[in-house]
């Protein structure tokens, strides 16, 4: 834990005047936001989840706002890494900030395969490895649930990649500090804390869940204290930078996550409501620090 008196930060040899990154899945590849003039204050965009093959995603409903949060079950809809390397990344090269590509896989090897293909593009600043997605070989249990698997995935990505990468942990699988250490043992250059929490909404009148699969990813600004606790635990356990992700709805939250041990802070759901959230947060945080 530390006092926060500046917004300067650095990641992978680069320094930034803003700690705000855009989280995966809520900013695309930054192109729409760039058109809207909303990339001011953005240190880096983390892209939507990229997989080997194109994925259509889950049947609707895919998003469902609850009283104090948001459920999502997108199913990693994306056009696949080939299309992304060919069509999307070249365009993303014109953004005023770096892009970190978020990657997912159905198997341990697939992560490395996606990364190898991304190595063919000059655009990515680095990668974010989403080990929260379901491991097909283990009956859909998340890769992130087992530190040994996380270490193996990290090591596979490490050998496939010339670029730095962060491993994005899941909060739904025990001790994140332990998993973070496993990721670092495998070669991770940062840890993202963390992906969405498993949540569910059921209609008591019908006995049916709101989302077809029952559980979905849940985000809420009220989860901030859980993320603060995990960021702190992970930052005490590992030497690499911690990228916080979860619960930011105002500048104070940003500063609190930095105080807890985050080098940079990602903003997800808030951007859906406020496309220019990064600039607004940066401005407000600057005022708080003055």
């Amino acid at each position, binding site marked *: 834990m530390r006092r926060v008196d500046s917004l300067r930060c650095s990641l992978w040899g680069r320094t930034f005047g803003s700690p705000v990154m855009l989280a995966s899945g809520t900013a695309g590849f930054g192109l*729409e936001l760039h058109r809207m003039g909303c990339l001011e204050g953005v240190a880096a965009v983390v892209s939507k989840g990229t997989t080997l093959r194109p994925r259509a995603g889950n049947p609707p409903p895919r998003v469902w706002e609850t009283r104090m949060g948001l459920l999502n079950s997108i199913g990693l809809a994306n056009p696949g890494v080939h299309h992304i390397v060919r069509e999307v990344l070249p365009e993303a090269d014109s953004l005023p900030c770096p892009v970190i590509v978020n990657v997912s896989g159905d198997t341990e090897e697939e992560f490395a395969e996606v990364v190898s293909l991304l190595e063919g593009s000059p655009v990515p600043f680095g990668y974010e490895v989403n080990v929260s997605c379901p491991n097909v070989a283990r009956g859909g249990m998340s890769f992130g649930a087992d530190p040994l698997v996380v270490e193996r995935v990290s090591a596979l990505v490490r050998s496939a990649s010339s670029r730095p990468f962060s491993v994005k942990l899941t909060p739904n699988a025990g001790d994140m500090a332990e998993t973070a250490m496993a990721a670092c043992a495998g070669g991770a250059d940062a840890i993202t804390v963390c992906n969405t929490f498993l949540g569910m909404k059921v209609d008591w009148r019908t006995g049916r869940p709101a989302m077809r699969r029952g559980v979905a990813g849940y985000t809420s600004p009220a989860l901030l204290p859980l993320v603060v606790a995990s960021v702190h635990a992970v930052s005490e356990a590992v030497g690499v930078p911690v990228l916080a992700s979860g619960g930011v709805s105002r500048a104070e939250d940003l500063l609190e996550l930095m105080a807890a041990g985050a080098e940079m802070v990602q903003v997800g759901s808030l951007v859906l409501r406020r496309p220019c959230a990064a600039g607004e947060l940066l401005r407000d945080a600057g005022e708080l620090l003055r």
Partner: protein
Amino acid sequence: MAEPVPVDAAAELVEAEAPLPCVIRQTYRLPSLARTAVPGQFVQIEVQEQGPFPMTRRPLTVSDVDPSAGTFTVVFEEVGGGTRALGRCGRGESRRVLGPLGRGYQTLPGDWLLIGGGMGAAGFPLLSRRVDVRRTLLGARDADHLLEAGCPNVSCATEDGSRGSCGLVTALCEGVDWEEYDHVALCGPLAMMEAVARLIPPGRLDRVQVSTESRMACGWGVCEGCAIPAVDGYLKCCTDGPVIAADRIDWNAWRETLP
């Protein structure tokens, strides 16, 4: 012509009324949107400026615009917390409005038939200004939910018979000679739209423009939250739609997503 980039701006509420007991009509000042919005496009309105909830905005169709006054109008029903809170917005207050969003109707020349169910007719006033509407068929639960204003040549049906014929809008459609119209605009609850689509000769479905709805998070294309089942995968309601040709929609798959 490049599509206008959506703008996020604070818009002042300049007029609010309840044209029907269950319906709210709000007019906001936002000159750029009033100038650029086309029929069938929508806006994402932030329910409250302060506080973390609701976390997402609420999508509402642009019902009409007045470019000279620099205003646009939305018409909506209070169905849940978000629309209820928005309905309490007072004249002189501002809300952030992001728009125009999505692809609207292709406003082609020829004779149009409009078919709307409930709030589905919200967008018809603006559409009626831009195309040649020969006839409008409207259905609603009751007279208190029937949006006739701004629609030419209305025939209507209500489920309780409180206005027009008693029954569903599909009954009105049964008498339609589909060859008479060059274009059809269809907007309403999914079950109603599907029933209507089934009455239309399959060969003419490409001339039916369906204004779709889906739960949305962003409204501007990044979250992939607003999937509409299409014949070739999913379309995004917010950027591929909301107006989608009826023959591109996978009606069976879409119906299955109903609770």
